[in-house]
């Protein structure tokens, strides 16, 4: 039944009715239908208010509208465009400078939040219009933005890793207690942060190499020659275009690292700072401010309605025995660590199409992690593998949260199809990274062992 629901949702989503309402609506109807045959207990819907209120009252998720606000201000005031094009010009007269600027800014932004919705949306707002305007192919632009946006999950500090660290730490203890170890070794959020750093940076390097390769093979994707013809900019202009927004981004990241603000609060530092810069540069009017607020409202509402829809879906999925389904799958796990790990990764990948990070972290990981850890796997490595895997899943067409979010802010400039085609190379790069990490766990485990002993 649970499987059937999953398939039906995938089909109905293709019709093109809004994703959030489809997820929630189909799930509810399906539950109603199943309840007639005694296959679903409608009493479970009593939990709906608790779950939705949980989303409403989640302070960590408040980072989303704050980041979106910052992104919209930087877009509408054209600060983002000036930043990216000036940086692109500085990177030399060769084609593709702009896209490397996007990577650079994207990595900094990705570091400051770990919520996929926040980074993809912010990056999309800031860089998509500029890239398209300069003649970059929509596919390449969309792919680069989605891929950089999902990096937020793995480049610390990341809320996704925080949640995962919490769950893994308990699973690790559980596994050791079952083996009779009562002063267990611990795995903390700090270990995961350290473990994620090398794989995260390697991933960025892979993106860059791929982009260079593509630049060499099909330069036409990187804008026409005419638009590349920058005027030699004066030093003053360069400074005025680069300095304020770069300072802003460093301020956001710096306020977290210096302990002035939590990641959620840092987003407000960014938003207020962006507004200040725009006002000082006289690139923000009352009318523009109203537009900023309206856009922030629409994008925030879009992101959160998806979370609510996904929450309804996962409630029904569970009520139909989805958890038992997964449980049974793992109970008959193929022999050996490799087989078990492969199975777990595949299931998480598929679930990542529709279930959000929180849901997977709380539902699937506690189920499988104690088993895998008892088999002797390293908790840091397991955590990074899961995070990378989910990141890939969120990027994989036709359903992935990163894709939904970018499509949500791209207006009519880019179609879903173009986004799909654009991300595929990046999905392959991520899979490659997963395989590399699978073969060499030290990529994740080395740094924490050096830092924390």
């Amino acid at each position, binding site marked *: 039944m649970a499987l059937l629901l999953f398939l039906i949702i995938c089909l109905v989503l293709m019709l093109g009715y*809004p994703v959030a309402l489809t997820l929630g609506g189909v799930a509810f109807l399906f539950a109603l239908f199943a309840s007639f045959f005694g296959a679903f207990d409608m009493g479970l819907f009593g939990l*709906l208010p608790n779950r939705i*209120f949980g989303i*409403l009252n989640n302070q960590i998720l408040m980072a989303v*509208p704050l980041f979106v606000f910052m992104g919209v201000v930087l877009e509408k005031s054209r600060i983002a465009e000036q930043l990216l094009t000036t940086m692109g010009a500085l990177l030399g007269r060769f084609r593709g400078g702009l896209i490397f600027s996007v990577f650079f800014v994207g990595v900094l932004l990705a570091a400051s939040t770990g919520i996929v919705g926040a980074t993809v949306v912010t990056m999309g707002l800031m860089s998509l219009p500029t890239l398209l305007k300069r003649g970059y192919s929509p596919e390449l632009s969309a792919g680069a933005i989605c891929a950089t946006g999902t990096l937020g999950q793995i480049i610390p500090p990341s809320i996704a890793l925080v949640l995962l660290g919490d769950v893994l730490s308990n699973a690790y203890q559980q596994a050791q207690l079952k083996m009779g170890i009562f002063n267990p070794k611990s795995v903390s959020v700090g270990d995961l942060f350290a473990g994620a750093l090398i794989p995260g940076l390697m991933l960025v390097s892979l993106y860059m190499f791929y982009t260079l390769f593509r630049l060499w093979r099909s330069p036409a994707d990187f804008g026409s020659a005419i638009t590349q013809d920058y005027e030699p900019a004066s030093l003053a202009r360069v400074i005025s275009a680069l300095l304020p927004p770069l300072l802003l981004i460093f301020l956001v990241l710096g306020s977290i690292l210096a302990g002035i603000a939590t990641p959620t609060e840092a987003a*407000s530092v960014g938003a207020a700072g962006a507004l200040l810069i725009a006002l000082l540069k006289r690139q923000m009017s009352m009318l523009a401010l109203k537009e900023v607020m*309206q856009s922030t*409202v629409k*994008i925030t509402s879009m992101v959160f309605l998806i979370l609510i829809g996904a929450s309804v879906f996962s409630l029904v999925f569970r009520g139909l025995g989805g958890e038992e389904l997964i449980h049974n799958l793992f109970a008959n796990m193929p022999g050996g660590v490799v087989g078990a790990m492969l199975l777990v990764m595949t299931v998480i990948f598929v679930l990542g199409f529709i279930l959000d990070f929180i849901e997977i972290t709380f539902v699937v990981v506690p189920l499988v992690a104690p088993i895998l850890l008892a088999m002797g796997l390293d908790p840091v490595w397991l955590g990074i593998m899961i995070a990378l895997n989910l990141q890939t899943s969120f990027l994989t067409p036709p359903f992935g949260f990163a894709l939904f*979010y970018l499509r949500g802010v791209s207006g009519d400039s880019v179609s879903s199809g173009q986004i799909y085609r654009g991300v595929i190379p990046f999905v392959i790069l991520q899979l490659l990274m997963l395989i590399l990490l699978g073969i060499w766990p030290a990529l994740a485990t080395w740094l924490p062992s050096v830092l924390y002993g």
Partner: protein
Amino acid sequence: MGKLIGFFEGITEALGRLVGWFTLGMVLMTLAVVVLRYAFATGATALQETALYLHGAVFTLAAGFTLKRDAHVRVDVFYRQCSERTRHWIDFVGTLVFLFPLSLAIGLYSFDYVMNAWRIQESSAEAGGLPWVYLQKSLLLGLCVSLILQGLCELYRHGKALFGREAC
């Protein structure tokens, strides 16, 4: 009929504009929390909670507004290529079978939850927190109403396009 729909759309628009200011409020309040704590060593739980209330209000009360602006994302691989009439059909049926049941379910299942919070005048559990948790919880009903109001408008609009005069 048209008048009523116009009235509903007016409410949707007004809500959208109102919560727009909330986003600015959230930014400034959260910033103030940071400044108060870092520069003045003062906690500001009440301010922190106000920002959180506003945050909840933004996406619940403006769910309909977002729908009106067609900003709820779609998987538009197929949708984009089909005829205008087919699109009207998808939206008409979708509103009828997905939006309404889902919104009603949210409203009905949340009703007691919200009423209980009102009955006990639920307040924050934090030291120095706000005493209006029941208002925050009421946003669940706000989500339902906001979606249904705009849902009716969507149904009317797509119905009119599909069935011409019969709908009026």
